C-alpha cells in the first residue's frame, strides 16, 4: 500500500509538469484558446443534435414496429382461438395436444421468427392442462405484471431484454391476450418478438451520424485553426517587432502586405515605430548638444574665471599696502570669487546630471572609511560652529560598490547641512549595513523643520528660512546634487524633520549594482518621542561633559580632535577599515579639544 501511494505520488508529480506546461501554453496562446472553445462548442452542439435525432429515430422505428406487431398478434390470437374452438378434443390429453399444436403452428405464422407461449391465466381454479411454449427457457420473460394485466381480456404488451448466446441481450417485445380453452378454462397467449433488426438499423444510423459529426468537428477545427492563424500570426509578428523595438533595435519594421486590416495594423505600427525612432534620435541629439554645451560653457567660463581669480588673489595678497576702502574691496572680491566658483561648479555638476552625462565610477569600498574621512574633513567646521560630531559605526565591514567621490560629496553636504542647523548641539552620524544595503544617517538636534519643508529640502535653490543668514554660504544646490548622486547609485536620500526636534537625513545605497532597495538598515525617524531640544537643556551646551548619559555603543567614537591628532590618524586609514578593537580605546571618551 505505501508502495502504491509512492507510485501514485510519482505519477501525480509527472502529470503535474505537462499540466503546468499546458497551462502556460493556454495562457500564452490566443490561437489555442480560440481553437479549444470552438471545438468545445461544436462538440456540444453536435452531441445535442445527435442525441435528439437518435431519440426521434429510435422512437419512430419502435412505434412503427410495435403497431405492426400488435395487429399481427391480434390476428394470430384470433386464428388460434378459432382453431381451438373448432377442435373436437374432449379429453385433457387431447386438449393438451391441441394446445401443443396451436403453439407450434403459430410460431411460424407471423412476419418472421417469434416465440409463442400459451400459459394458464392467473387466478384459474380447477383442473387444467400444462402450459406450452416454443422455447421454455424464455417463459420467464413473461412477467407477472403482464399476466395480471392480460386478465382483463384485452391485448397488452411489454418491452423485454432477450438473452442470447454469449451472455448478450437483444431488445424484444412480449404481446399477450386471453384465449378460451375448452375444459381447461382461460389461457393466455403470448408472442415474443425480437427487435434486433430495428436495433441494428438504428445502430447503423447512429454510427453514420457519429462519423459525420467527427468529420464536421475535424473540419471545424481545421477551419478555426486556419482562420485564427491568419489573424494571430500578424499579431504575433507585431508583438515580436515591438519587443525588438523595446530592446533598442529602432529600425525594426513589420512587413506590409495587401490592403486588409492586417496591412493597416502593420502600417500603423510602422508609423508608430518611425515616430518613436525620430523622437529618440532627436532626444539623443538634444542630449548630446546639451552635453557639449555644458562642456563648452565649462571651458569658456572657467578660463577667464581663473584669470580673474588669480588677479584677485594677487591683489588680495597685497591688500595691506592699500587704503582701507580698497583693502576691503579686495577682501570682498576674494570671498565672492570663492562663492562664484562654488556656484559655477555646482551648476555645472547639476547640468551634467540633467544631460545624463554623469557616470558612476564605482569600486568596492567600506563605507565606514568614507564616513570617517568625511567626518574628519567636517570637524574644523564643527569646531568653528561650536558643534561636535558623534560617529557610530557597526563592527562589520560595510562594503558596497560606490563611487567614493560622490559618496564623499553627499556626506560632506549632509554634514555641512547638519552642522549648520545644529545650533551648537551634537550631530550624530550612524552607519548601518544589512544583506542588501548600506546606510548612513546624519541627525542633528537643531531647530528642525516641518514635514512640508522636509519634502522640499532637495529642491534646487530652496531655503528653509529665507530670512536666515547663511554664514557657511552654501550654494543652495548641495542637497539637490546629493540627491542626484544617490540616485545615480540606485540609492535613496531621504529627510525627516520636526520643528524643535531637529532633522535627520538618511542615505541608503545598494551594496551591488542592480539591487532594488525595499528598506534601509537604519531608521529615518527616531522610533520614540525624544524630548525636544527646548526641554533638554544640557543638550544645547557646547560641552560634551554636560551631555545626558548616552547609551554605551560599540564602536562609537567622538571625533572632536583636529585632523592631525596622532590618535586619529591610525583610525583614519581609508580602506583598511577600523575594527571594533581599533576604535574601542576611544569609544567612551568623548573629548573635546580646541
Amino acid at each position: 500500500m505505501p508502495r502504491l501511494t509512492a507510485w501514485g505520488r510519482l505519477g501525480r508529480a509527472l502529470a503535474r509538469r505537462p499540466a503546468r506546461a499546458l497551462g502556460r501554453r493556454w495562457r500564452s496562446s490566443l490561437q489555442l484558446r480560440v481553437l479549444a472553445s470552438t471545438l468545445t462548442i461544436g462538440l456540444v452542439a453536435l452531441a445535442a443534435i445527435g442525441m435528439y435525432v437518435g431519440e426521434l429515430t429510435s422512437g419512430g422505428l419502435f412505434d412503427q414496429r410495435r403497431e405492426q406487431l400488435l395487429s399481427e398478434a391480434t390476428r394470430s390470437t384470433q386464428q388460434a382461438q378459432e382453431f381451438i374452438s373448432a377442435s373436437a378434443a374432449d379429453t385433457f390429453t387431447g386438449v393438451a395436444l391441441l394446445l401443443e399444436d396451436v403453439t407450434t403452428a403459430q410460431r411460424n405464422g407471423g412476419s418472421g421468427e417469434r416465440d409463442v407461449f400459451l400459459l394458464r391465466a392467473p387466478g384459474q381454479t380447477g383442473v387444467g392442462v400444462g402450459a406450452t411454449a416454443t422455447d421454455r427457457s424464455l417463459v420467464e420473460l413473461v412477467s407477472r405484471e403482464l399476466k395480471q394485466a392480460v386478465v382483463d381480456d384485452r391485448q397488452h404488451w411489454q418491452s423485454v431484454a432477450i438473452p442470447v448466446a454469449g451472455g448478450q441481450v437483444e431488445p424484444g417485445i412480449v404481446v399477450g391476450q386471453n384465449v378460451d380453452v375448452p375444459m381447461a378454462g382461460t389461457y393466455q397467449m403470448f408472442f415474443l418478438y425480437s427487435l434486433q433488426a430495428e436495433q441494428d438499423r438504428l445502430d447503423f444510423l447512429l454510427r453514420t451520424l457519429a462519423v459525420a459529426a467527427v468529420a464536421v468537428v475535424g473540419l471545424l477545427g481545421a477551419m478555426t485553426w486556419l482562420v485564427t492563424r491568419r489573424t494571430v500570426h500578424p499579431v504575433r509578428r507585431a508583438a515580436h517587432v515591438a519587443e525588438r523595438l523595446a530592446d533598442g533595435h529602432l529600425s525594426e519594421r513589420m512587413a506590409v502586405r495587401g490592403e486588409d486590416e492586417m496591412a493597416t495594423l502593420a502600417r500603423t505600427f510602422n508609423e508608430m515605430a518611425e515616430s518613436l525612432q525620430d523622437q529618440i534620435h532627436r532626444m539623443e541629439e538634444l542630449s548630446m548638444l546639451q552635453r557639449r554645451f555644458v562642456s563648452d560653457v565649462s571651458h569658456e567660463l572657467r578660463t577667464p574665471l581663473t584669470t580673474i581669480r588669480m588677479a584677485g588673489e594677487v591683489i588680495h595678497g597685497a591688500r595691506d599696502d592699500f587704503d582701507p576702502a580698497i583693502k576691503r574691496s579686495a577682501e570682498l572680491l576674494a570671498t565672492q570669487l570663492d562663492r562664484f566658483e562654488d556656484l559655477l561648479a555646482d551648476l555645472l555638476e547639476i547640468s551634467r546630471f540633467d544631460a545624463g552625462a554623469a557616470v558612476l565610477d564605482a569600486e568596492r569600498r567600506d563605507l565606514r572609511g568614507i564616513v570617517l574621512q568625511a567626518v574628519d574633513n567636517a570637524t574644523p567646521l564643527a569646531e568653528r560652529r561650536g558643534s561636535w560630531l558623534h560617529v557610530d559605526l557597526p563592527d562589520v565591514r560595510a562594503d558596497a560598490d560606490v563611487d567614493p567621490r560622490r559618496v564623499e560629496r553627499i556626506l560632506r553636504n549632509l554634514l555641512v547641512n547638519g552642522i549648520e542647523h545644529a545650533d551648537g548641539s551634537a550631530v550624530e552620524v550612524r552607519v548601518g549595513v544589512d544583506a542588501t544595503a548600506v546606510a548612513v544617517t546624519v541627525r542633528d538636534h537643531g531647530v528642525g523643520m516641518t514635514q512640508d519643508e522636509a519634502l522640499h529640502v532637495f529642491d534646487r535653490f530652496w531655503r528653509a528660512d529665507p530670512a536666515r543668514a547663511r554664514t557657511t554660504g552654501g550654494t543652495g544646490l548641495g542637497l539637490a546634487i546629493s540627491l542626484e548622486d544617490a540616485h545615480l547609485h540606485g540609492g535613496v536620500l531621504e529627510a525627516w524633520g520636526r520643528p524643535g526636534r531637529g532633522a535627520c537625513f538618511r542615505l541608503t545605497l545598494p551594496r551591488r549594482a542592480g539591487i532594488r532597495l525595499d528598506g534601509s538598515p537604519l531608521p529615518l525617524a527616531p522610533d520614540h518621542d525624544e524630548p525636544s531640544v527646548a526641554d533638554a537643556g544640557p543638550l544645547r551646551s557646547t560641552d560634551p561633559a554636560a551631555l545626558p548619559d548616552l547609551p554605551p555603543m560599540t564602536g562609537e567614537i567622538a571625533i572632536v580632535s583636529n585632523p592631525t591628532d596622532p590618535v586619529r590618524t591610525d583610525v583614519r586609514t581609508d580602506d583598511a577599515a577600523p575594527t571594533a578593537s581599533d576604535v574601542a580605546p576611544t569609544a567612551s571618551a568623548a573629548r573635546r579639544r580646541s
Partner: protein
Amino acid sequence: MKGRVLVVDDDTALAEMIGIVLRSEGFDPVFCEDGDEALGVFRATQPDLVLLDLMLPGKDGTEVCRQIRAESGVPIVMLTAKSDTVDVVLGLESGADDYISKPFKPKELVARVRARLRRSDEPAPEHLTIGDLTIDVPGHRVERAGRSISLTPLEFDLLVALARKPWQVFTREVLLEKVWGYRHAADTRLVNVHVQRLRSKIETDPERPEIVVTVRGVGYKAGVAGT
C-alpha cells in the same frame, strides 16, 4: 631652486597672469600660444616643467603632451577646464604627470609646480630592490639584469615610494600625498593611470603584474622580491 616653466595656453590673459604669479615666486616662465609651435618652443627653451592647456588651437593638448613625453621625461602638468573623467584620463594617459582644474588658486598652481620640481632632496645613498629590479635612488636609475629601464621622474618617485616600504600596502590617497604632494585626497584616477603606465614599463607581463601588486579594495604594494 627655481626653474624655467613653459606655459602652453592660447588664452593670453591667463598665460600672462600665470606668468606674473610664477615670476613673483621666482620661476622663469616662457610662453607658447599654439599647439603646433609647442614642441619647437620646448626644444628651444629646455624648460624644467611644462604647464599645458588641453584645448589648444592647432595641435591638441594631448598630442603635444605625447610628443614632449616621447623625447623627454620633463614633468608635465595639464591645465584643464574639464573635470570630466574622460578628458582627465585621456590627458593622463597621453603622458601628463598631474593636472590642475580651472579655476585654480595661485597658491595651488605654485604648490603643484613646486611639488613636481622638487627633486628627491632626501640624502640617501640608497640602493633598493623591488622584485627583480634594482633602483639606484641618487643616480635615478632602474635596472633589470644590468639593462637600464627609462622612467619619467614621476614614475620613478612612485616606484621608489613603493620600494622603500615593501611590507606596506599604500592606499591611493597615501600615494597621492607621498608622490604628488596632495594634502587632501584628490582624484585617485591619477594614481590608477600612473600605476598602469609604470607597469607597462617595468613589468615583464603587465597583464599579470608582479612588481606593483594591486591589493583589492585597498591599494597597491611592492611585489615580494625574488618571486
